Every structure is written in structure tokens, then in C-alpha cells.
């Protein structure tokens, strides 16, 4: 039974989101902290170093951590106010059970009893319908230890193939394309390598709002001579001072890359020597690009012809270069192709494996990198291993002490799991660190699926929007209440440190997972007593995999303020123990050895060569039409994060940008008779939303933008389409067809809900 137990407004009264404010010791100018804890921000993939001020088991403020090399004290507003998520009135302090007779829909229950109920429901479902009747959803904001444990829990304890994670909404297009092109899924260089480069191409990344610290790297590179190219349907803050702006029409990125590569080939602005020596597949790509004449490219992409020519020349003729991209090109049903197109531009210039020459995706979530490496992804085992590969299965089964035949095969992506719930195949769900009711596309469908579940347990520190459907909620841990490692945007493994103890009955997530295993009487392999023990097993499990962490230790991470994987305990060439491997800040250096190529070349394929892949432009699903003539694209604002479970509870961040607004160009606004701040209705084939207009000429006139951090009637994902990339299964968040009109008046929610609700 997983319908919402009572009117949501009554749930709001008790569980929020309410706003935290600076009060008491957090407002005092005279209270001194007892200690400063060096750790990291809990939000995005930059993983900025920060020091938390702690007093009376409460985080009361922060102090910049200027020594940490990535951000040197810099923080965005989310990092500054992150501490206000602790000691929060909405914090879950006990286990809860769904209770329609309770005034707010849920009643507190003793933790042990709640875990017992979870175990008995899982047992009931699995004995009646098989192990695959229960699914697990994880997330990339968890520490790597937790993601490893969760993958093991699904496969070994629940014996279900059905586990996936919210990175499915985030980095999978980049990951799949990286593996196809390079054989390894990681950014190639540390960000410091950008300073001194000649050109940086940023495709589909609102850097200033989504990864603010990267702004300083880009602009410092520019001060020192780099030209900056920005490809985006919106003129975002990073685009304001760029050297070349490519205002691409949503969903046309692969076409743009093909057109640019064609110009490079025509002018012989390619590194033929590198292509011949270090790659395969160029000829097929060149043949594909031949169709992408400048005229056709300009027509399809909406980028002026001279800008396309300029981009090709600026990019190709530079001696050194960096290409970065993010969800703007990845959140498409053509996401993998878009990423491959960008990689083709990099490979054609041969600018890899050297200082100032790099490529990478800017990950979105805290552990966007580490969270996709160690087995909470449906097709994967620890160390970036493949669950369908017999050797990989054998190795991991050995580490886990199970018979390989007991290890389930690949499951399905997170959205497909919901389709399986809809079909009645998955009947029970364990979810942590994932708020699909807000974050998945076409979320009315997701809601209907949640309502069909026979049993749903959510582990969370706040009652997020999805957890309102839960039968049982187990009170998990905040970032500052646990320790563990996280791998940030550059592939640098960093360490999150515990600042305070869990309040009330709440406890660390890894303990909760193990408690469920114990209650199921399947505790073998789930008896870790601290995160360090989990990490030590993860080191062994990752050993010999591409994401090899075997040489990483907590001490080394702290001492060196981060270690770049792969970091070996044994020399991959000789097998001899290495006492202190330095890690691998820069991939693909000439002469570098990796366990796949075994010396044949720098790339992670048996022949050591990188792969060109034909990157086909395909028109997006649900493209514009006469009926729905305008593109809708979605994204972030700087003061909010993902589905807002944390940031919609932090007062100063909510005040900065309280509610979503519809961004549209004055040309479109004029045509529709809309002026700034008018209430507007945006409609797609799946849903409608009523928001205030924000009329700005910093967006394509054929496109509107809505930020996605809000729930319910304010959720942008009521509108988005569940079309997915055929390879990566990432949803197409960045484009669908809509129509916009002026609203008759304010929506009902305007009078009923606070901005963050």
C-alpha cells in the first residue's frame, strides 16, 4: 500500500519542507566552536573542501578551508549555507510507519520494530514472487562505501538483479560514451591543467550555476590566453564574457559537432599523425560528417554559419585545448551520440595525455564519479566491472564469498524499474538518496507506479516527496554524521569526515542496510563495524578493475588532500607490490601502462587505441510541432540542488530564488501577450504547470526554461518526456515540445503553499 496516507498539506505541516534559519548558537557572534572539522560540501560534484564549526553536537557555521587544492576556500551559496541542513525541524528522528489515522499521515515506531517489519515484508514478497520482486534504488550523493555496500546488499542479501541509482539521471550518457571511446570512464585531467590552455569548449554546461568553482578555472585560463567557446540555448553567466557563443537549438548537439568536424576535415585542421597512431574508426566518422555541410549544420542547429566556421577554426587550430560538457548535451535520447560527437572533436585534434589538453564531463552529484564505479548501477560490479563478464563475476563472487551462480545478472535502469512496478513485476522497493517523484521525467507516471507498490521502505533524513508514499521510513544520516570517501569531478578521491553524531534514533545509512540484512537473517558479508572496513573490502573488490582503488587508503587521501584513481597496490605490469602509488591525475600520457592495453598504448582497449564513433544526429523524441511549437528545456539554479530535499529546507537559499519561474524571450513573450511576472501556463503532452514569467533575452526565442528543483504542482518533470537514450537510458530532460499561454489567474497553490513546498 503506497498511496499518500493523508492530504499532502497535512504532511507538510509536520514534515515540511520548512525553512531553517540562523538562530541560537548559529546566530551568536560570541559562541566559539569546540572544533573545526575538515570535510567537503554535501552537494555537487565539485566537492569543495570546507571546515564545519561544531559545538554541542551541532554544526553552527563554517570556516573556509583555503588549503584544499581544488577550491582553495571558494564556495558557492549552497556550500556556505549547507550547515543549516543540520538540527533541522523537519529532521527524522525516529522510524515512521504509514498511518492514515495519524494527523500527519505517519506515526513514529521503534527502530528495531520498523526494521523487523521491513525484513518480514521483503521475505513475504520474495518467497511469494521471487527475489526479483524487490528492487533497490540508490544515489550518487552517498559515499562510495555506501554505494558499494548497497550494490552488494541487492545482489548478495536480496539476490535481486534490480538495483539502479539516480546517476541514471545524470552521468550515464557521459559514462557510456567515455567507455566506448576511451575504454575508461573518467575525466582525463585535473582542472589545474586548464590554466595555460589555448581554447576551452564548454558544451551544455551552465557552469556558473551548476559547478560554480569551475568558473574560476575557466576564467583564469581565459586571463592567460585561452579562448572560451560556449554552446548552449541560453546565454548563461559563463557565456556572458565568452569569446564565441554557439546558441544551439535544443537537441541538435550531435549535428553541431558533426558540422564542425567536417570543416576541420575539409581544412586539414586535424592531427592525422595522432589519428593514425592512436585511434581507430576515423574513416567512418569522416564519411558520416561529409553530409554535414555548413549549410545543413546551420539549418539544423540554429547556429549562424559564421559562428560554426569560427568555432571549427578556434578549436582546431589551437595548440592545446580542453573540452567540457555536462547535462546540456547528455540529457537527451541522443545523449551518448552527443557526447561521442564531442569526443570526436577532441580525438581529431590529438589533444589528450598532455598538460593543458583534456576532456571531461562535469559531474552533477557529490559522488557522481565514485557513485558510478562500484556496483549500484544495474549492469555493474565494483571497480567499473561488468556484471555480464564471466571473469568479473568470478572475481567479485570470490571477494564476496558466494557461488558465482548465485550472483544475479544485469538488472534494468531506474526508469525501467518503474515500468516493472507498473507491470506488477517489482512489488517491493528499498530506496535511499533518490527522490524519483520529483526527479524522474513524466512524474505523474512515477506517482502512479509508487501507488502500486505492495511495500515501500525509504531511508532518508527528511521525508522527501517520494518517501511520502512509503510504508516504512527509516531515519538515515546526514552527510556530516558519517565518514567515507567520495570521488569528485576530476577523479580525485576525497574524504568526508564526521562532524556530529546522528540525532535521536537516526543512524548511519550503512548500519541501516546491515540491520535489514541481519533482520532477514542474511547477515553474512554485512557485519562491518565502520566505514573504513567497508572501504578496505572495496579496495580489494576494485583491484584489477579499471577503477582500481587498491592503493588508496584513508590516510593517504587525508595526507595528500585527494588521490586520483587508478591508484594501484600492485604494479599492473609486473604484479609487484607498490608501497605508495601516486595515483593518476592525468590519463593517457604517452608511454603510460594500463591493465587492458598492457603497454600497447595509452587507451584502455587491448590495442591501446582510442575509438572514433559515428555520432549520429537524431531528432529528439517529442520534437516541436504546430500543436506544441516551443522547446522546453530544464535545469538548475545556483541556490538549489537536485530535487531540493535539502536545499528547499535551507532558509537563506530558498529566499535567494524561492519558486520556479518560466524563462522566455521577449519576442516569444510579445507574441503570447505575456509580460514579466505574469502567470503563465506551460503545457506538454504529459502535463501542465503554472508559473510566473521571467522575460529575458538570454534564451533562444523558440525555447523556454524551467528549473526542476520543486515538487508537486511546481515540478518541471510533470512536463518532461520519459524518452531515454537507447544505450545509456538517460532521460531526455533537456528538450520536449510545449505550448505556453498567459494564465487566467494565479494557480491554487499560490494561496496554499509556501514557496519551497
Amino acid at each position, binding site marked *: 500500500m503506497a498511496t499518500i496516507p493523508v492530504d499532502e498539506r497535512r504532511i507538510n505541516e509536520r514534515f515540511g519542507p520548512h525553512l531553517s534559519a540562523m538562530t541560537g548558537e548559529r546566530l551568536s557572534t560570541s559562541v566559539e566552536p569546540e572544533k573545526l572539522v575538515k570535510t567537503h560540501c554535501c552537494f555537487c560534484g565539485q566537492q569543495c573542501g570546507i571546515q564545519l564549526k561544531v559545538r554541542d553536537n551541532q554544526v553552527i557555521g563554517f570556516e573556509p578551508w583555503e588549503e584544499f587544492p581544488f577550491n582553495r576556500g571558494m564556495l558557492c551559496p549552497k556550500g556556505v549555507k549547507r550547515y543549516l541542513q543540520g538540527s533541522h525541524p523537519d529532521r527524522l528522528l525516529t522510524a515512521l510507519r504509514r498511518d492514515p489515522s495519524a494527523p500527519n499521515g505517519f506515526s513514529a515506531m521503534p527502530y528495531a520494530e520498523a526494521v523487523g517489519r521491513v525484513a518480514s515484508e521483503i521475505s513475504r514478497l520474495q518467497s511469494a514472487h521471487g527475489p526479483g520482486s524487490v528492487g533497490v534504488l540508490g544515489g550518487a550523493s552517498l559515499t562510495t562505501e555506501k554505494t558499494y555496500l548497497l550494490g552488494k546488499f541487492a545482489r548478495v542479501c536480496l539476490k535481486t538483479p534490480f538495483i539502479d541509482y539516480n546517476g541514471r539521471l545524470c552521468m550515464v550518457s557521459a559514462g557510456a560514451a567515455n567507455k566506448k571511446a576511451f575504454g575508461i570512464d573518467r575525466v582525463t585531467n585535473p582542472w589545474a591543467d586548464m590554466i595555460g590552455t589555448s581554447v576551452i569548449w564548454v558544451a551544455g554546461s551552465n557552469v556558473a550555476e551548476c559547478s560554480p568553482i569551475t568558473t574560476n578555472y575557466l576564467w583564469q585560463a581565459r586571463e592567460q590566453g585561452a579562448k572560451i567557446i560556449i554552446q548552449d540555448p541560453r546565454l548563461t*553567466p559563463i557565456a556572458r564574457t565568452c569569446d564565441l557563443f554557439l546558441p544551439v537549438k535544443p537537441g541538435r548537439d550531435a549535428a553541431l559537432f558533426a558540422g564542425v568536424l567536417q570543416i576541420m576535415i575539409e581544412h586539414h585542421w586535424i592531427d592525422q599523425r595522432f589519428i593514425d597512431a592512436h585511434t581507430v574508426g576515423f574513416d567512418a566518422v569522416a564519411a558520416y560528417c561529409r553530409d554535414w555541410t555548413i549549410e545543413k549544420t546551420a539549418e539544423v542547429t540554429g547556429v*549562424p554559419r559564421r559562428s560554426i566556421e569560427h568555432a571549427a577554426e578556434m578549436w582546431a587550430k589551437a595548440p592545446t585545448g580542453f573540452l567540457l560538457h555536462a547535462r546540456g548535451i547528455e540529457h537527451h535520447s541522443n545523449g551518448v551520440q552527443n557526447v561521442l560527437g564531442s569526443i570526436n572533436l577532441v580525438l581529431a585534434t590529438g589533444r589528450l595525455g598532455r598538460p593543458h589538453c583534456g576532456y571531461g564531463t562535469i559531474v552533477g552529484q557529490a559522488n557522481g564519479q565514485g557513485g558510478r564505479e562500484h556496483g549500484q548501477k544495474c549492469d555493474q560490479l565494483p571497480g567499473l566491472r561488468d556484471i555480464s563478464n564471466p571473469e568479473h563475476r568470478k572475481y567479485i563472487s570470490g571477494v564476496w564469498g558466494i557461488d558465482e551462480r548465485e550472483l544475479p545478472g544485469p538488472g534494468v535502469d531506474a526508469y525501467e524499474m518503474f515500468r516493472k512496478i507498473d507491470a506488477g513485476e517489482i512489488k517491493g522497493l528499498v530506496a535511499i538518496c533518490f527522490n524519483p517523484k520529483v526527479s524522474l521525467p513524466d512524474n505523474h507516471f512515477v506517482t502512479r507506479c509508487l501507488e502500486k507498490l505492495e511495500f515501500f521502505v525509504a531511508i532518508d533524513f527528511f521525508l522527501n516527496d517520494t518517501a511520502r508514499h512509503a510504508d516504512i521510513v527509516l531515519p538515515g544520516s546526514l552527510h556530516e554524521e558519517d565518514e567515507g570517501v567520495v570521488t569528485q569531478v576530476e577523479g580525485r578521491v576525497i574524504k568526508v569526515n564526521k562532524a556530529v553524531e546522528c540525532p535521536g534514533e537516526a543512524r548511519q545509512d550503512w548500519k541501516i542496510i546491515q540491520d535489514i540484512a541481519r533482520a532477514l537473517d542474511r547477515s553474512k558479508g554485512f557485519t562491518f563495524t565502520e566505514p573504513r572496513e567497508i572501504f578496505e573490502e572495496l579496495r580489494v573488490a576494485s583491484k584489477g578493475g579499471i577503477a582500481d582503488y587498491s592503493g588508496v587508503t584513508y590516510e593517504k587521501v587525508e595526507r595528500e588532500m585527494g588521490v586520483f584513481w587508478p591508484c594501484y597496490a600492485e604494479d599492473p605490469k609486473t604484479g609487484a607490490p607498490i608501497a605508495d602509488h601516486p595515483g593518476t591525475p592525468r590519463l593517457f600520457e604517452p608511454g603510460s601502462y594500463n591493465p587492458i592495453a598492457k603497454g600497447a598504448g595509452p587507451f584502455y582497449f587491448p590495442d591501446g587505441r582510442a575509438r572514433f564513433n559515428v555520432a549520429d544526429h537524431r531528432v529528439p523524441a517529442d520534437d516541436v510541432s504546430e500543436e506544441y511549437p516551443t522547446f522546453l528545456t530544464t535545469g538548475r539554479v545556483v541556490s538549489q540542488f537536485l530535487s531540493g530535499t535539502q536545499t528547499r529546507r535551507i532558509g537563506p537559499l530558498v529566499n535567494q530564488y524561492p519558486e520556479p519561474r518560466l524563462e522566455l524571450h521577449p519576442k516569444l513573450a510579445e507574441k503570447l501577450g505575456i509580460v514579466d511576472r505574469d502567470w503563465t501556463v506551460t503545457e506538454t503532452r504529459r502535463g501542465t504547470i503554472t508559473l510566473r514569467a521571467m522575460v529575458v533575452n538570454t534564451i533562444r526565442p*523558440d525555447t523556454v526554461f524551467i528549473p526542476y528543483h520543486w515538487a508537486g504542482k511546481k515540478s518541471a518533470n510533470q512536463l518532461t518526456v520519459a524518452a531515454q537514450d537507447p544505450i545509456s537510458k538517460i532521460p531526455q530532460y533537456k528538450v520536449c515540445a510545449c505550448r505556453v499561454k498567459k494564465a487566467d489567474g494565479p494557480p491554487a497553490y499560490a494561496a496554499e503553499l509556501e514557496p519551497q513546498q
Partner: protein
Amino acid sequence: MKPAHLHFFVDPSRCIGCQACVQACSECDTHRGESMIHLEYVDRASSVQTVPVVCMHCEQPTCAEVCPADAIKRTADGVVQSARKPRCIACGNCVQACPFGVPEVYEDRKLMMKCDMCYDRTSVGKKPMCATVCPSQALFYGTAEEIARLRPMSAPTNRFQFGQQTITTRVFVMAPKQFVQIAKNVDVTASLEPQRGADPFEHVEI
């Protein structure tokens, strides 16, 4: 005492409007809960350009000159402080007079408060909170040599023309190098003329 070789530099061309400075300012131990920084869009309808405004710490502070209660003091190291509590009568003269629009009167406590360059931090050799956290380093605190090395395309200037009034400040603004070389000072009044940039999407028909 603020070390004399460390200076505050504002580079609006780098500002991304993220408000990290505003949020961090409210964490300062001398005025927790209140931000002394103003960060505004110049004209959001036509641009994402934002400008962070901190106190410029004038050599001859107009705010202090017009204060009837003599409540605004400039320390020997050149930092203009918030009004002194016993003296301030919250008349708002300083608010009206400041050419940069910095001071604010807090009616609930009848006191003018403004950016004091994080005097509790800078006087002990630390960086101000805002310049430490600023993700784009539009706010920078360091030596003249550092800024010259880090910003080769621009140069610091600290002389501003407001009509007949010329003001020299402790805080520097980064401006394009060629401009700083030819202009004696920044004519602020002239730059207030409305300027609307070209529409970057002019070519897109709907």
C-alpha cells in the same frame, strides 16, 4: 591592523551573480545574520550581468563627512567602519551621501551598518569572507603583485568621478588595461547612461 600589502579588488566582469558573497557575509562574526553586500542585476531583462557592491573604503569617506554625530570612523589602516553604536542617530545622511550606495540604516536597532572589510578577519591577517568564497574571484583579496599576475588583461583603478566629486578608494576595481592607462579616473556618472546590449538571439525567428 590590516596588513598594508593586502588589498581588495572588485572585478565585476567576473561576477556570476551566485550570491556566495552575500550568503557568506551574513556568516561574519561581527554581524551574523545580516549581509553587508549588495548584489544586483544591472538589467536582467537584457543581460545576466550582476555587480557586487562592497564598501569601497574611501580615502575621504563622504559618509563620515556628512555624519552629524561623527559616528563613522576610519581606522589608521584605511578601513571605514560601521557607525558607532552610542553615537549613531540613524539619520540616514550617510545612506543619502555615499556615492556607491553602500551604507544601510537598520531601523530595528537604529544603527547604520555596512561592510567593514571583515575587519575581525583582515585585521588578523585573514581574507574577508566574501573574497575567500567568491567562486569566480570577482572579489579578490591579495597583493598588487598577485592581481597583476592573475589578471594580465586588466588593471586596478581606484579613482572615481561623480560629477564634480573625485573619490579615491582603498578598494580597487579591475578595468580593461587600455582603459586604465588612458583614463585618469572612472567617470561613474557617464557610465550610468542606459546601455542595452545587442540581443544574442536576434537571428532566431519564431
